[in-house]
């Protein structure tokens, strides 16, 4: 009996020694990456597009953990509550990450995260099928004004960049019937099949179907390089800039050196020519920005975000 006890203690001790992490340099094991959407969705692609390079740069692979639900708020909450040790990071999109808590969906705030970098900007675009009678942005406005509230315009997430663009257009005097869709691909089918008159999409989701579409306007500051000849809303007299910024983030409180290495590593990955080329083909052109930029964006956007929620509630009440 006594022997057994000694043996057990020895066994436990051995297990303990093996299990105790040696104080090695980060990262010495795979890194969990929380994707708050379904596999295959745009956010998943954001990670998958650089999965190979991530392993080359940091020496450890990414373990993809999908936590879909509530437009990403479920996964973001999980990320916010994870240990900030550099072994759990995540992906999400601005401005959705700001809107979630405002709409009562997530138990986190923009201050719950350390921002590592912005990989891409997915800009909102207004598209119609090639054979549509609407040929230009002017046609679109004329049609909308001629039949107030009748022109069917598809959008994707509630208070995502496409919906925000639609609300802003309406606010600036273009009345339309805003039709939300569950996912970009279903919305694309609806516009190609003529079930809606026009669609507000993001570049990433629409460039794969580019040969079947006419692009009428793009909600960026400057004309998009990927969409030559397409005017911006600003050029047409509508002050609308709206995009998904695809973000790499981690729970607040990362060790400073880990945070720095992650930020610099991501920067070097996105600076590679082959990575850029791959992103262009996927319709998600690289627009790398440092994570710190996002803090400024969020601060600047907060008042606007509250205004948008109010605007949306007003419009719903009118219906």
């Amino acid at each position, binding site marked *: 009996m006594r022997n057994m006890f000694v043996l057990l203690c020895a066994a436990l001790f051995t297990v303990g020694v093996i299990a105790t992490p040696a104080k090695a340099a980060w990262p010495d094991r795979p890194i969990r990456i929380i994707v708050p959407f379904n596999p*295959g969705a745009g956010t998943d692609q954001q990670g*998958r597009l650089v*999965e190979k390079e991530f392993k080359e740069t940091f020496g450890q692979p990414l*373990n993809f953990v999908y936590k879909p*639900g*509530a437009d990403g708020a479920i996964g973001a909450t999980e990320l916010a509550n994870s240990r900030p040790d550099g072994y759990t990071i995540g992906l999400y999109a601005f401005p959705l990450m700001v809107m979630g808590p405002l709409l009562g*969906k997530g138990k986190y705030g923009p201050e719950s995260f350390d921002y590592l970098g912005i990989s891409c900007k997915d800009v909102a675009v207004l598209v119609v099928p090639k054979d549509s009678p609407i040929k230009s942005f002017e046609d679109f406005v004329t049609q909308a004004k001629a039949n107030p509230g009748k022109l069917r315009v598809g959008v994707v997430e509630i208070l995502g960049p496409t919906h925000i663009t639609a609300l802003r257009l309406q606010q600036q005097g273009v009345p339309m*019937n805003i039709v939300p869709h569950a996912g970009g691909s279903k919305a694309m089918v609806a516009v190609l099949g003529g079930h809606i008159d026009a669609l507000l999409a993001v570049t990433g989701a629409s460039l794969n179907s580019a040969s*079947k579409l006419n692009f009428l306007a793009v909600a960026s500051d400057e004309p998009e390089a990927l969409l030559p000849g397409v005017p911006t809303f600003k050029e047409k007299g509508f002050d609308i800039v709206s995009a998904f910024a695809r973000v790499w983030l981690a729970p607040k409180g990362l060790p400073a050196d880990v945070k720095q290495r992650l930020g610099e590593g991501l920067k070097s990955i996105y600076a590679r020519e082959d990575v850029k080329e791959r992103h262009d*083909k996927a319709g998600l052109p690289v627009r790398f920005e440092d994570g710190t930029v996002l803090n400024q964006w969020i601060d600047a956007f907060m008042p606007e975000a509250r205004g948008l929620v109010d605007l949306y509630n007003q419009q719903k009440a009118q219906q």
Partner: protein
Amino acid sequence: MESSMLSLFLSSLGFVFSPTTLLIMVIGLVVGIIGGMVPGITTVTAIALFIPFTFSMAPTLALAALGAVYCGAMYGGANAAILINTPGAPGSIATALDGYPMTRNGRAPEALFTALLASCFGGFVGAVMLLAFFEPLASLALHFGSEAFFWMAIFGLTTLAAMSQGMVLKSLLGGVLGLGLSTIGLDPSDGIPRFTFGIFDLLQGFDMIVLMTSLFSFSQMLLLLESPDEYIAKYRPQPGAFLRSLKTLFVRNKLLAGISSVAGAFIGGLPGAGGSVAAIILYNEAKRWDKNPERYGSGVPEGVMVPESANNASVGGALVPLLSLGIPGSAAAAVLMGGLLAQGLAPGPQLMETHPDIAYGFIYSLIFANILMLPVGYVLARVCTKILDVPKLYVIPAIITLSLIGSYSLRNSMFDVLVLIVAGGVSYLLLKAKIQPACIALGVVLGPIVEENLNNTLIRAHSDASPLDLFVFSPLSATFIILSIVALVLPVAMQRLKKGKEARMARPVSTACLYRYDFWVVALLAAGGAFFLWQSSLLTGNSAVFPEVVFGLVVVLAILTLCSEFFSEPARQSTFSPAALANVAVYFFLALATYALLDIVGFYSSMFLCVTAMILFGLRRIRRVPLNISNLAKAVAVSGLLVLAEWLCFGVLVKVPAPEGLLF
């Protein structure tokens, strides 16, 4: 053009028949089939799991591998559905309806081979259709607006009326219960919380696959505890089963197999519909147009053949929108698209134009994968039949723990594990009240499609003079409405006709039903429905429409069922035996205790404890074997091996980050 097509064909042929391609495709098929069988691993997970392995491959090879996983996973679910009545994937729900009765009748090998042959044939037809008609198929799919999807899903729901003979009301009640389950979480129109009662975990809603696993796998295991048999089903080798399956498919039912494959491919091509909808609708149609519809459900090979061919044919269909429009037609196709993008290829019309070698190489490899699946699937099916040689006391804990970790792995959520256990227990209790899990499952699968398209159509209708323009008078709406009415009325009318005068004879009112268990279950459902109806009335806008209708229907159907009970034969006996119920309760609470331990002790250790406890309890109380050292050692060894296998599958291969707790 002709010559370039020919050279494309020849080069693709050379590619497909190279040893590397063959090897990779066989691996892909095995991964897919096993993934499809295991509850909780979906087609999507199986493909996503395989993507990293394809990074170092050339694009054509990578696509061939992913295509093989896709085909295998769509078929694999059938094995579990047939052998233990636990559809591994939503596409196999309909397969279980006749496949499992075949196993009970000692025809397991025949059912398995029929499913395999039908899957290969359906997949082959689907892939050939993708090759030959992808342009027309794509433009046809574009005609389906939200109003058509809405009515198509309603048409799918009419299957309920024919699902269980003589109990139409209870089938319908089960179906609307499933619809009701799908309304919990964020509502799809405004994206705000609905029926979550402040519980954060409810925000994500119930995962469809978790509910499937609990409705079928978990509750089925509890049901298996009741019978005194040592094995799940009596099994004897069936000489000539393969030949008989061949005959079923290619001699007796070649027209039916062809139609279900072609229609399956078409439904698969509608974005958002997918293999499960195809399988359910076609199973129902095959039953309706059969000379003798009652034989379906009792274990006929046609009931396996039709849904399996439709399910696998949908693979070819789902790739149509991806290759022609750049739009993934299903979640699995979306993951496949991710694999393409990682290779630096953008799917869509431009892929066909700029890289026809890759696009056509992919389609040819898909056609070939379905042929290759025949020998691979044959070997695996032979292996799988062995489960019938294992005493059920070992099978039951194995399936229960597999369901636990499978549900966890879907969204890495402990809440889903709890949902699995509780919903499994509830669905067992409902099953005892003759409300079939298959009916609830149908509601769960179709609910989100119905609501999403209902809301979308309601909003689009603002632009018309009257909402009826879209809902009734558009050609596709009208077609599906007529089909749905026929589908609802026909089975009832047929029954009346057959029963003749007997049915019309009024039975005396009897209060015997008040002493029956199922009466009070339905009464409880009526009360619950009323509560949720009241809750729905507090919602605003479009998010209230669907729940109000659904819970209104729950109340109405439950009350109608209650009324009809008063006229039923008083002789019906209770289906409970106290001893069986006690056993079921013990297993249920063991599972619940395991859930409580998962976080504290660790996932795999607590599953080990769970299996050991279940086996020992089963040996002692159900088999009445005296417990001695050798029994004990055997139970521990079996549990250890089982959990080791589960760890290898989920921990090492799928890399599920399970909670580790104190031990492991």
